[in-house]
């Protein structure tokens, strides 16, 4: 893929740990790629499967979801529920031959600034090497 490809990435984070990681990163003046758009939700468990599907059909080249580590969820089990929904969506995409690797799910704790910027950079490079999302620019989805 040409260097000019600038992927649109949506980074969905929970309001407790995920965004906390981003805050810590900002406190340390860390850098993450500009093409990553952060979207805060109260809990990853509050995400519906349609929230995961729609960006991938409507313009995002990749979607990454970060919530609290297992056992750390502010609401006890939101991240476990999110994991089930991510698994469901990925399985649906896989079984139809659509690209499920444009959806990532990784835990980021409040203090894990390094982990947050690494994930943003790693996912951006991952999507860059994949190229643009074919579904995002098709008119017939």
């Amino acid at each position, binding site marked *: 893929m040409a260097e000019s490809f600038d992927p649109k990435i949506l980074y969905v984070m929970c309001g407790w740990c995920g965004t906390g990681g981003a805050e810590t990163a900002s406190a340390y003046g860390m850098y993450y790629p500009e093409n990553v758009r952060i979207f805060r939700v109260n809990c990853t468990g509050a995400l519906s499967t349609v929230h995961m599907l729609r960006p991938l059909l*409507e313009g995002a080249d990749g979607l990454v979801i970060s919530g609290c580590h297992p056992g750390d969820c502010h609401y006890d089990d939101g991240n476990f529920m999110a994991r089930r929904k991510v698994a469901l969506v990925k399985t649906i995409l896989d079984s139809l031959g659509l690209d499920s690797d444009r959806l*990532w799910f990784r835990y980021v704790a409040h203090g894990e600034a390094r982990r947050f910027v690494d994930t943003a950079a790693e996912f951006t490079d991952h999507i860059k090497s994949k190229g643009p999302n074919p579904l995002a620019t098709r008119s017939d989805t």
Partner: protein
Amino acid sequence: MKGGQVDARGGIQAGITSFLKEALSKGCFDAVMIPTRVPAGDSFAWILTDNEDLVAGASPLPPVMPVQGARALSSITKKGKAPAKIAAVMRPCEVRAAVELGKLKQVDLANVTLLSMDCPGVLELSTYLSDPTKGDSEFSRLLDKWDAESLRPVCRSCTHFSATASDIHLGLLGAQAERLYVMPLTPEGSRVTDALNISADQELDSWQAKVDEVRQKREEQRRKSEVELKERVEGTEKLLATLSTCIGCRNCMRVCPICYCRQCFFDSDALEGEVAAHLSRAERKGSLRFPLDTLLFHLGRMSHMSLSCVECGTCEDACPMSIPVGQIFSHVARRTQELFKYDPGKNRYEPLPLVTYEQDELHDFEQPYVKTYSGKGAADA
């Protein structure tokens, strides 16, 4: 499997109705919900009745499935427990859907006796309507031979054609001429067989052998048809080409027994956009096709109902554009159900996969963290 036998002189359907009639007259239940041929003669509808003559003239195993039985049962018991005992006479996939709807609080099974029977499958609705007489004779041939060529594609590879979570199962396979097997599967089922003085202690080996034989054939067919389906729909291009004829009528959703929402998310204001939003969307995508959000609707619906999908194929019958929705959905459903080791309609007390979790599971879907990523974009202050 243990069970007893009842008389079926006059054919399988007559055997089932006379069993029901006797149960009704002995007070095993107060009413029966059963499919009956419509007066015009070319289709079938559900009736709820305590009239023994109507039950005697009903068609417990119609050649088509215009309305999924679980939907009919939901219409009756959605608002709560039935005040009188109702026997619901359904195909295995309808029983399974009813059990799933019970978990979704759309059916109250508290005062319902579920009655199922071995089901050879059904014919395509449109084919049947074009020539009901031919369809009827083809179906009676199917009841005898149990081959699959003329069935709907999802029925051809259905492996849940026999005993399920019902209270009483009527076995047609492997029974002697003019006999039917009766299997009580729950205490509620035993209550009925006891009242009718049917001793249900006979080992039904010939039934079991025949069921296994048919299941093996169906599994083989399933493997074959899955390869063919993948050939047709797998990948962005093929999937969008297959769905490109979708007119957005939502028939598949409306007839689906599992899709019960009063307001479907995909018909809601959530997907309505302002003019400017549509224009910028068209600009981003180069153009915009209407009806909108076809793929989102189908993928989204899969994410909402595929875990409870019983592969009844009613969606495919209802599609005016002949899109193989039933085959696509059952293909996906098998995978999502496999993911959570969930068999819909098998166990009334097993929770739906999306209302429960285990702490130690699904680690394949967590992206492992490579300690300190040092890719090309990872420069930081």
